[in-house]
């Protein structure tokens, strides 16, 4: 797909490459693909580790994440009961 030079400059598409094309609100959206490795650890500096994290094993960390997700599901259900 050819994109006019002015649009390429505006959007910073400097080289030929691949793109993801999708429909959104009756428009065609074209987004350049990212290399997966450019996203490695992208949230590393944005996370706050919970208390006691350093003492947990890898499996305990995963179990705690699963437990927080389960608690979230329970909270969501309880919220719907409270409101009516």
């Amino acid at each position, binding site marked *: 797909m050819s994109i006019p030079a002015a649009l390429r400059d505006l959007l910073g598409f400097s080289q030929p490459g*691949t793109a*993801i094309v*999708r*429909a*959104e609100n009756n428009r065609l959206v074209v*987004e*350049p*693909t*990212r*290399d*997966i*490795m450019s*996203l*490695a*650890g*992208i*949230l*590393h500096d*944005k*996370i*706050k*580790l*919970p208390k006691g994290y350093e003492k947990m094993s*890898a499996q305990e*960390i*995963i179990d*705690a*994440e699963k437990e*927080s*997700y389960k608690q*979230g599901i329970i909270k*969501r259900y309880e*919220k*719907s*009961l409270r*409101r*009516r």
Partner: protein
Amino acid sequence: MKNLYADANVLISFLTKRIPSQYLEAEKMFVDARGKNMKVILIPEVILETAYVLQSRYGVSRQDIHDSLTEIFNTQVVEVKHKDIIIRALEILKEINVDLSDIYLYLTAKNDNAEVFSFDEDFEKLKRRF
């Protein structure tokens, strides 16, 4: 070569490096998949869990969840099931503090020209705005 269905903890490891050894394995999985032309497939349930854990357990902002996951979805190695709805759900998540699973349910129904029947008033909020 078979494609891989990634679990939420793999995606979280890759994005956050919260367990260095698992981060390295997740990184290798993506590199291998890319090299072998395989797909790493993400299903909505895994994406919902990932977003919830990032937000509630690790305090990641809704904006950062949107940005990082949308970027992951725009890589060639990743295939997302129900991608259009998930991407739209993440856009709405940025704007409104409602569970991603509620947004996903709302959009799935809307996409099917149907409505959600629920006792949770968050769906009224969604209906008014989106």
